[in-house]
Structures are given as C-alpha cells and as structure tokens.
C-alpha cells in the first residue's frame, strides 16, 4: 500500500488537474450539445467522476483522507440522483414515447 501511494505521488499534481478539467469540460459540452436525456445524464455523471478523480488526487497530495471520504459521499448521492432521474425519464417516456428533450417544449414564453 505504501509503494502504491508513493507511486501515485510520483505523478505531478498538475497532470491530474489538467486531466480532470478536460474530462469535466467534455461532460459540460455533452450536456450542452446533446439532445437525448439519457446522454445528457451520462455527461453529468462524467462531470461528477472528473470531480471524484481530482478529489482523490488532492487527497493523496495533501495526505488527508477527508477528500476520499467526500468521494464516497458524491458516489452515494449520485446514485440517489440516478434513481430519481431515471424514474423521471421513464415517466416521460411513458407519456411521450421519446427521451429527446426537444419534445419538451410546452413551457416557454
């Protein structure tokens, strides 16, 4: 375990920050340009996982466990969100037979 931690600390922190920022940006772009609710949802998960990766990297860097505990919180709450979110998408699919967000245009001015 010690050697793993040391090997991880060998990778400079900047690389993690850059990688996470890139993954996060891919997630953001996915949310903004895709029209399918499920794919938007997947992009949101990508954003959350970029955060998880960065948190663990910082946690190792600071030698502080609280960052990794936070990752567990994020995973647990993301799971709760998935449960509710998929239920909402199924409810919409039952009414409109589609998961394309363009059919949702009843509310606008």
């Amino acid at each position: 375990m010690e050697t793993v931690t040391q090997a991880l600390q060998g990778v400079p922190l900047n690389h993690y920050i850059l990688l996470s920022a890139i993954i996060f940006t891919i997630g953001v772009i996915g949310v903004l340009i895709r029209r399918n609710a499920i794919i938007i949802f997947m992009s949101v998960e990508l954003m959350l996982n970029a955060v998880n990766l960065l948190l663990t990297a910082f946690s190792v860097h600071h030698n502080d466990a609280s960052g990794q505990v936070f990752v567990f919180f994020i995973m647990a709450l993301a799971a709760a969100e998935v449960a509710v979110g998929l239920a909402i998408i199924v409810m919409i699919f039952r009414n409109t037979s589609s998961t394309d967000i363009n059919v949702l245009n009843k509310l606008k001015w």
Partner: protein
Amino acid sequence: MSALITLSVLAIVVLYLGLFKAKNALLPVTLVGLAVVLGLAVREWNSNAAPIYSSMMLFDNFAVAFTAICVFSTMLILLISKDYFERISEHVAEYYAIILFALTGILVMVSYHNLSMLFIGIEIMSVSLYILAGIRKKSYSSNEAALKYFLMGAFSTGFLLFGITLLYGATGSFDIAVIKNYVISNPTHISPLFYSGLLLLIVGLCFKVGVAPFHFWAPDVYEGSPSLISVFMMTVVKTAGFAAFLRIFLFCFAPLHDFWMMPLMVITILTLFIGNISALYQHSFKRMLAFSSVSHAGYMLFAIVALGSASINAVILYATAYSVASIIAFAVLILVKRQMGSDNYESFNGLGRKNPFMAFALTVAMLSLAGIPLTAGFIGKFMMFSSALSEYHVSLVVLAVINAVIGIFYYLRVVVSMYFKDSDQHVVQSTPIFSFVLAFSAIVTIVLGVYPGLISNLF
C-alpha cells in the same frame, strides 16, 4: 441540533402514517411536528453554539434564524395544502414526507460548517424537489418541469462540486474555519486553484438560487410544477439557497471582496433586468410570479454584493417579506385556478367585487412585492439598497430603483383586473383555512412594514 433530528424522524413517522392509511392524521401530525421543530430551533438562540459532530455543523444564531423562517413558511404552505394533494393522487403521505425531507436538507444547508455538509444538504433538498416537481405523473408540463429541474440541478451540482474540490486542493480541508484561516493568513499568495474554485462555487450556487444568466430553468420549472410545490420552491428553497450563499461568503470569502465583487455585481444587474423585463410580457399570473422570483433573487444578491454585518438582517427581512407575500399570491392563485381553470390575468377580473377580502389580501401581497411603503417588501428593499449605498455602489442602486419601477407595472396589473374589470364569474369559494392563511400573511406583511424592528435587529 435536536431540530434536525426531530424533523428527520417526523418525515419517517409521516411515511408510516401513510402506510397505515391514517389520512386524516397526516396534516395535523406534520404541523404539530413542525411546530415542535420550530420551538426546538428557537430554544438554541444565543446558546453560544460551537461546531458539533467533528465540526461538521454549527447551529448558531444565523442557522436558527433561517431555520425559523424556512420552517414557518413551510407551515403556512402546508396549511393551504389541505385538499390540494388529494386532487392529484391517492397517496398523500408521500408528498408530506418528501416536503419534510426537503426541509431536512434545508436545515443542513443553513447550518453547515463543512463544505461536504453544504453539498449533502443541497443534494437532499434537490433530490426531494425533483420528485415533487414531477408529482403530476400524467401532466406534460409537470413532466417537463421535473426533467428540466433534474438535468439543470445535476449539471449545477457538477460545477458546485468542482468548485469545492478546487478549494480543497488549495487549502487542504473542507472545514470552512480552515478555509477562512487560509484566506486570512495568505493575503497575497492565494493559489490560482482557490480563485477558480471560488468562481465555480459561485456558478454552482447561482444556478441553485436561479439568478441570471443561470436562471433559464427557473420560470419553466416554477410554471410547470404544481402550484403548491412552486411556492415551496420559490420561497423556502430560495431563502435556504441564499442562506447557504451568505454563510460561506460572510465567513470565508469576505477578505477577497475585491475579487468576487465585480462578477456578482454584473450577475445582479443582469438578473434584475432580465427578471423584470420578462415578467412584463407574461400573460399568465403564475409565470409572472416565476419571473418576479428571478428578479427578487437579484435584489437578495445585493446583500452579498454589499457584504457586511447588516447583510444577514437584510436577507432575513427580505426573505420573510417575499415569502409571506408569495404565499398569499399563490393561495389566491390556487383558489382562482380551481374555479376558473386558468391562471391568466383575466381569471382575476371582478374578484374585487365578488371576494373583497381575497382581493384585499392579494393587493397587500402585490404592493409588498412591488415595494410600496407600509408593507414589508418596502422595508426589505430599503435595507438592501441602504446597505449597497453604504458600500458606495451608487450606480447599482440607481439601476435597481429603475427595476423597482418596472416591477410596479406588472404587479399592479392583477390589481387593476381585480378592481376595475368586470366579469360574470361566480364567487370564488374560500375555506376557513385559506382565509386564515391569507389574513395571517397579510397581517404579517403590514406589521413588518410598520414595525420592521421586530426582526430587523436580530444581528
């Protein structure tokens, strides 16, 4: 802290009441439970609170005050829920339980002392609200509101989390006391990670409270959700969002005022103009209230732009005034919509002659929202503007006053239809509980307008 535990237990008790088909007991049990929560919270006022649970939470006066406002507004909203949920579905207990769970999240949000608790509080609240927004399973607009709220909420959570992570990377802790020490002890060498984290945190929180340019979900969600849920989201949730926003800024980021003031000022001005000008063009009363809630979020941001010791008082007074006025507006809207089947301005024609009391209460609410003197809304705006003036943001106040004038136009439109237009509609039936809520909220609005000292000097 016993308030938080009581509230969580209460929500589970209400779920079990639903399981045992004790439908008539639901509302009384919920209200009595909330009254107990309110009492327990107020008892901790001035108790010199110290951080508890490994410094995860801090139930100080700030938390007590916002808990009291949120619990109190929820009680008023639940009072008008009599006969409301029964029209939507047979399983009523779930709605009460989910509202109580959302309120639990709100209590965590206003009393956090660690950024992980901020995140958990926001998520407990948001996940409950996604369900509540979509409780009309067969209605397209409710479906759409739920999906929009869910996608935008999850999206903004991503920004919030990335911001928290970068703050953690810079400071090495989630504890806001440690972050505060970091800011104070390195006035010149603050890491760029910290600044980017702060900006992302602002974006995330702005999404949650619905200020421009992150407001686009708000009008749709507020219009599409069932009215009772909309009023809960517009009042209690917005108050809690600002409490969370204010808490971290007041505690940690005040020394970095020069850095974040400019972006927040631009956001405030954008919010005021977009909210007010869009509200002018609405035909539906409910959608007008939705846009007006965006513009009120802009006024509440004043307290953060002009951060100071008076900010807490200003937000408390403003949030109370705005909440009671919105509750009146929605109570009348629910009754009128039940009778007329539409929430356009025309549905309110002739209400002044047929239901003078209801029309009077709605007039008081509209005057308070518009900020006319002798109502609580005026005092709220006055405190916001004077705190901004004391920080020499003169141009900001001038723009805000222009917006307040625009606001008067659309708020008085419904008053004009009530008193000066005629229609052959029947009397809108009110129930004693509705009348009580209307009368009580109108009295609170006027009393706070005349004696603002009752709650404006708490801090």
